[in-house]
């Protein structure tokens, strides 16, 4: 239990650090902007109670927002992300099958499941994020291109990160 809290805490700090000091400066002409920090929400253990999940999502969104000077935007997107995460896991994972390994990791859940999990959640998060950020449907095509390219970039970074910390399923 302590181990899980510690590792998640470290992950929180590390991801926010990478996001605000490294990835904030990376981007393809503002078209493709990676938001890797949502990996923290994706990797929270299955058993996290909903209130904690939403609270942590809100907090990490707020933290990133305070560095990005867009107070509330990332928090809103992360709240939506948390809801989609709850729905997605409810639909795809049987409760009783993961007593041993409680975290939705690539090494545990398999590439296929994790890939869809990451793609769908990232797409939702980025959609909400960019729509709230632009806050108009005037140039929706541009926003749509931003959403798609940014999602691809973020998912790519997530997969890279997951492969770096790849751990084969322990049986």
């Amino acid at each position, binding site marked *: 239990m302590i181990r899980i809290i510690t590792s998640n805490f470290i992950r929180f700090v590390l991801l926010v650090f990478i996001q605000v000091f490294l990835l904030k400066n990376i981007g393809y002409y503002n078209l493709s902007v990676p938001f890797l920090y949502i990996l923290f929400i994706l990797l929270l253990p299955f058993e996290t109670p909903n209130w904690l999940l939403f609270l942590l999502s809100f907090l990490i969104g707020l933290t990133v927002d305070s560095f990005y000077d*867009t107070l509330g935007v990332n928090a*809103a997107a992360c709240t939506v992300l*948390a809801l989609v995460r709850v729905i997605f896991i409810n639909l795809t994972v049987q409760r009783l099958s993961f007593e041993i390994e409680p975290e939705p990791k690539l090494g545990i859940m398999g590439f296929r499941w994790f890939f869809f999990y990451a793609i769908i959640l990232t797409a939702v998060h980025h959609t909400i994020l960019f729509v709230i950020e632009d806050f108009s449907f005037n140039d929706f095509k541009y926003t749509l291109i931003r959403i798609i390219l940014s999602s691809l970039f973020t998912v790519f970074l997530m997969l890279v990160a997951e492969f770096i910390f790849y751990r084969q399923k322990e049986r």
Partner: protein
Amino acid sequence: MRNLLIFISKYNAFFFFVFFFAMSLILVFKNNSFQRASTLNSSNLLIGQAYERYNTLQKYLRLAQVSDSLAAENARLRSQLKNSFYQNKAEERMVNDTTTLQQYTYLVAQVVNNSIHQKNNSITIDKGRSHGILPGMGVICSSGIVGIVDNVSTHYATIKSLLHQDTRISARITETQAFGSLVWGQEDYNPRIATLKDIPNHVDVKRGHHIVTSGYSALFPAGIAIGRVRDTRKKTGEISSDIKVILSTDFSTLAYVYVVKSNFSAEKQALELETEEADD
């Protein structure tokens, strides 16, 4: 109550979502001026559109009132236009020469009403009693005769047009000096054709002969053009017959006319009346 709590706890994810999402949206709108401004703008836009719709409806309901006021304004503006003022200026030319006495003077008048398609046509001009026009005066235009003044008011006069069944004008054929009286509307109502009555059959009338005023009536000076003979007439056994005349005046395009004032007509009429009385 218990059921409600069960419901809330069963779908707690959704309620957490609503709570946190609302919080973050509040943060967004409280702290980001762009989003706040655009929300206010869009709500203003919405309200503005609603007001606009309402105004359109109201405008439609007030349409009668608005059109009335516009018509009143139009009338007011129209009354200020130059052509709505009456031309109270009469032009009369007179030559003073002691070797000749001026018998006729001419007064320019503008046609303000005209008709040619009726049985008895009349013309209204914009000069009246105040300009010295009296009933019975002759009216001519640049191309021929027009008619005889019928009624006169202070500023207007009506003319019994040549195209009137009661109009009779003494006319003469220039080439032969034969004279008769010119009438219109005997058989047809063509505004270009009149009839010259009672020309003796021994007079040789040819097509194209000129018809002019005779000067007998003192309404018109002698020699004012009336028209031309339309057909060379056939010989018949009668003593006299009628001649069709193509009028030189185009009554359909009449714009300016001259009213003929005869300075000696009163004298002449008085003398003729005296003679008739003496004969009786």
